[in-house]
């Protein structure tokens, strides 16, 4: 059954979108990530204009992170103080990101920026994740116990000024690197239509040694608020949020996430990270192929001018 998307001005198959939402929701529930990094590219490949895909996806990530954050809050696995600092930085990043998005859109370079960012960002993050998980798997197989965190040993960036203590996260250090990270994630989120959980979670674990127990809940808290801000700003500045598309993606995503979460419980930690790394890298490679392989149709059309 087809349904007309009023903002995208196109007719799409409702069940295709619901199924896509459910499939991505399943994966996101399984890995505890928002799934934006899969959904936005899928929407673009489906023919939805990139600007609308990115802006609308922000609302879908809002819905899925509400579900996730509430669950972690109930289990008290959420550090509000660290979350608050991350949200503050995230807001700044989102503002800059939406501004950049609109400028690139006016210049007609948005699609190119999105493709190149996916290739570089996903290529780098995916490779790092893959290397890390392979290393851990190799080490556990050989019976080497990975070094645990030693107290008193601090990376240099935590020694910068404006120190704060985060009890729940067992962290004492400068907020400058934390806010910087949050700004970057907020920026990438607004431009690429991703929550950034798959970057934020490993960053908090490896760069700030935040205990795994609170890290996912806290990152979901940050993603929730930055994506709410991104949805609002996109709706306000470029009118690219399609409410019908958003609703379909949210319904599909919410359903899929529930089953995904159940499937994820049976997954071992290391194979879990390996699979996620392969997924991220796969999306990056898929975009790289578009850039490198001779296109079947070298020409493309864009219609400009105000919509009535």
């Amino acid at each position, binding site marked *: *059954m*087809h*349904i*007309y998307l*009023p*903002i995208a*001005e*196109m*007719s799409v198959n409702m069940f295709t979108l619901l199924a896509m939402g459910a499939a991505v929701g399943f994966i996101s529930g399984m890995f505890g990530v928002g799934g934006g990094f899969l959904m936005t590219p899928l929407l673009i490949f489906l023919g939805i204009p990139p600007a609308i895909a990115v802006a609308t996806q922000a*609302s*879908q990530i*809002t*819905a*899925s*992170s*509400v*579900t996730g954050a*509430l*669950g972690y809050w*109930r289990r008290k696995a959420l550090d509000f103080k660290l979350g608050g600092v991350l949200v503050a930085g995230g807001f700044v990043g989102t503002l800059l990101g939406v501004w950049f998005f609109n400028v690139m859109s006016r210049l*007609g370079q948005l699609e*190119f920026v999105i493709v190149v960012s996916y290739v570089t960002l996903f290529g780098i993050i995916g490779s790092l994740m893959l290397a890390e998980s392979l290393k851990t798997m190799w080490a556990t197989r050989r019976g080497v116990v990975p070094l645990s965190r030693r107290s008193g040993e601090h990376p240099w960036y935590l020694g910068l000024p404006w120190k704060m203590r985060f009890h729940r996260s067992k962290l004492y250090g400068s907020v400058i690197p934390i806010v910087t990270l949050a700004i970057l994630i907020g920026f990438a989120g607004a431009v690429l239509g991703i929550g950034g959980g798959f970057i934020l979670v490993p960053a908090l674990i490896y760069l700030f040694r935040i205990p795994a127990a609170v890290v996912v809940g806290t990152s979901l808290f940050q993603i929730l608020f930055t994506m*709410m801000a991104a*949805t*609002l*700003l*996109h*709706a*306000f*500045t470029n*009118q690219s*949020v399609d*409410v*019908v598309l*958003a*609703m379909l993606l*949210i*319904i599909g995503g*919410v359903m899929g*996430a*529930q089953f995904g979460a159940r499937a994820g419980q049976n997954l071992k930690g290391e194979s879990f990270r390996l699979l996620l790394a392969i997924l991220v890298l796969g999306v990056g490679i898929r975009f790289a192929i*578009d*850039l*490198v*392989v*001779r*296109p079947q*149709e*070298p*020409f*493309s*059309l*864009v*219609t*400009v*001018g105000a*919509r*009535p």
Partner: protein
Amino acid sequence: MPRLLFAAAALAAVCASLAPAAAETLILSLSTHRVAITSTYTGSSIVVFGAIERDERTVARAAPYDVVITVRGPRRTTIVREKERVGPLWLNTSQRRFVDLPTYLAVLSSRPIDEIAGGAFLTRYRLGLDMQIATPGMEHLASEEPFREALLRLKNDQGLFTEEPRGVTFLTPSIFRAPITLPAVAPTGNYDVEVALFVDGAQLARQTTNFEVVKTGFEQATVTLAHDHAIFYGLGVVAMAVLFGWLATIIFRRD
């Protein structure tokens, strides 16, 4: 005074010589003047009905009538971009702008246009798809050619530029019908329908009518809200997202 009389006589003579050309009139009717976009809209079809009315004094034509219908959608600027190899990458390097180009074009005729009229007439009466997108004076620029071809090809793939050489059917020798197909991507706005009548390569009459494509009900309300009250629209979408996310925790609660 005699000069004026002479002028009047000359004018009458000219009119008399033109009279056969004005002997036929076209009467048009569209199946609808308003295509409403609803939530299940997947495109639409409009039928043009036409009758050729002949002056009583005019003798019957030896050759059959030919009809060419040109439908033009709202005009926007369309940019055609071309990807070229830059090092290892394929990037958009060059582009051509087609300013004020109809977003939708359909040319329907009772038989192939080049059989109806010769090349000079095609240009003169602006008949056929090629003529619609030609920028005056730029038709023969070799560098434009690939972009014009790509424009026609890509728009045709979307169902936005179509040519139906036998799209006009004569029901009787003087009554015809032609279905205009609108794909779902056809933009909202005003569409002009121009009908031209030919006999033996000469134009006898030309008549225009129009229809509009509009969003209605929920679709229209959504667009108005999104554009005119963007902040409320944004808040509404966020509220909906939060509500659905929260509902999910209640419905699927496991602990």
